């Protein structure tokens, strides 16, 4: 039996009104409360959109986050923001986290929003994006123990039912055999005993060569980016859950619901995971808001039709 669901992961695009308000505040033309008020409107719209579309879990959209790392960097005295670097093969840039000292998460500063879906960088990606002269595996372990686990717990304390880890580096740049045990250990540190599902999502690269290992990770589900991964690689049976990144988060054409359902059904047939989650290939933040909104409706409709088509 496969449980089928869907949710939005990652940062959601801001509306044109919020972009304009933020620009006005940055340039001193408006007081900060203007952005806060507009962000509340955006958040309410996004929540309503997801409910209307029938998504299983509802994300806050993380509209205040400048990038995936910044809320953690801002809440941890042992980290600082470094130079802007390209976010993989996209026209989006993030500030490199720079390691300055031991990690301790200041919960008063951490912008963990109230949301069904918590969001964090995965330990492997974080350890590779960070600037640090030390050993990368030791850094990954420390990040998992001292930063990501406390952050995951904070999300759960605020009501999250699922914590989603973004792990693009694993598939975009690869992971050495020697690093794999440390990665698995880091995921255990974050997820063991956590009162929420833990999903690790790989994207911006082909998960095919890693499928055997990914499907055995100690998490509730593993995400793959179907825009970069061959369907044939997803042979089963899967012992863990599977998140299908089946809506292209970097491309403007809106996916056809029927084709998406057919694709998901084919993968479900081949893998029979205990949990099948539908979502986007990457954050929808790489799209303008109106296009993202339309993809959310496709996501909800495709999940609904899949449930109706497949007796689970």
């Amino acid at each position, binding site marked *: 039996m496969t449980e089928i669901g869907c949710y939005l992961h990652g940062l959601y695009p801001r509306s044109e009104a919020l972009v304009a308000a933020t*620009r006005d505040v940055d340039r001193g033309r408006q007081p900060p409360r203007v952005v806060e008020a507009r962000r509340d409107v955006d958040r309410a719209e996004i929540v309503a959109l997801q409910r209307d579309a029938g998504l299983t879990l509802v994300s806050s959209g993380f509209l205040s986050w400048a990038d995936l790392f910044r809320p953690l960097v801002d809440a941890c005295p042992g980290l600082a923001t470094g130079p802007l670097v390209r976010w993989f093969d996209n026209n989006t840039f993030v500030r490199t986290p720079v390691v300055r000292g031991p990690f301790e998460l200041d919960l008063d500063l951490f912008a963990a929003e109230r949301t069904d879906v918590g969001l964090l960088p995965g330990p492997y990606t974080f350890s590779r994006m960070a600037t640090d002269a030390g050993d990368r595996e030791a850094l990954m372990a420390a990040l998992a123990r001292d930063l990501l686990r406390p952050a995951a717990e904070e999300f759960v304390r605020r009501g999250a039912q699922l914590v989603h880890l973004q792990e693009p580096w694993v598939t975009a740049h690869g992971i050495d055999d020697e690093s794999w045990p440390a990665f698995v250990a880091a995921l255990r540190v974050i997820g063991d005993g956590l009162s929420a599902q833990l999903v690790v999502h790989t994207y911006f690269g082909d998960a095919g060569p890693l499928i055997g290992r990914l499907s055995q990770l100690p998490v509730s589900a593993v995400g793959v980016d179907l825009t970069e991964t061959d369907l044939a690689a997803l042979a089963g049976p899967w012992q863990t859950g599977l998140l299908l990144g089946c809506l292209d988060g970097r491309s403007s054409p809106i996916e056809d619901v029927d084709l998406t359902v057919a694709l998901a059904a084919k993968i479900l047939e081949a893998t029979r995971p205990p949990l099948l989650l539908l979502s986007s290939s990457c954050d929808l933040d790489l799209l303008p808001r109106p296009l993202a909104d339309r993809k959310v409706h496709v996501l909800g409709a495709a999940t609904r039709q899949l449930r109706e088509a497949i007796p689970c």
Partner: protein
Amino acid sequence: MLTPLTTHELGSLAKPGWRVKAAAGRPLTDGDVDDAREWGERLGVDGYERLVDLLRGSDLSRSERVEVKEWSSRYGLRLFESAGLDVVFDGEQQRTEMYAWAIAHANGFEFRGSVRSFDNKYYSKAAVVGPVSLKAPFHNDEYKLLREAARRPLKVPVTGPYTLAAWSFDERYRGQVDLGEPLPDRRRRYRAARREFVLDLARDLVRPNIEALLALGATWIQIDEPAGSTEPSEIALMAEAYDACVSALDGTFSTHLCFSDYDLFFPTLEQMTGCQQYAVGFANYDSRDLGVHDDARPGYHIVRRFRDLPGRPALGLGVLDIHTDFTESPELVRDRILYAVEVFGGPDRIQVMPDCGLRTRTWDVAYRKLQNMVAGVSLARTALGL
């Protein structure tokens, strides 16, 4: 123009509040008028009193709004000139933004909405939906205005075809994507579609625009490719498109690369034979410590690879971090230059510039940074006995 330690600007400046409001038809404040007067005096803009009078008036007519934009260009130009730069432009005051301006003057595109670039910075992203072509040359009016106003040589920045493609959605060339199709087939179709798109932009949009500028007398064209390393497997395509823009044309042609892992460009850049200067941002990756040894200059180790390019192109050395208000001291600029000169074995192929456009900084900060850059070049010249 490409003489040792020539200083030049690179891309856009912030637009003054009076220019933004006037263009949008929004009311101006006394502060806007004061700002125009103070900068006019500070930069020595000839006839700035006319702008001040214009801004004092109510309800600017359409032609007056155009005139305000022209004043904005004169101010931008004079900011660079009075800071002491050798080669100048106007900080792209006539353009909305480097991508949107080009796309708005091209056939075949529709804007889809705002997408994040970084932090709270967004750009308006379009989709290609039809055949690409040039509506009309879109830098000619700007060039004619600046040609009359400039006291120093001009370099015209033009957005490159690879960047225009990389920053656009593709709703035409790639067609419907079937995720059930085998990955190698999908990738092959993607590469073919992308190549056709980029080369169409080079041949049918960017090149005719450059030809129009050359016909007006422009002598130095900088093709901006900030997206150059977005997809490492496509750097050869960027190089091919660059040559498609400039081959057999008579002029000085350079390119601008920034915020990338520059190692990715090598050895492919060796194919870009038509490029006479690479203007590259380095300061963003560098330390603020003084010194000319490797440990002090981590952001500049990569310059070795530019030194070894065939054809001995010049290097436009980015020495100002444009994402921070930190003002580089003349001594820090000097040491960054001296480090690169040492690596290159002499100053002949080194020019000096900011990492990228200073549009995210206030004019106060940008001006201070540029003045210190020029002072740093002077210190470097002294140190080198030039």
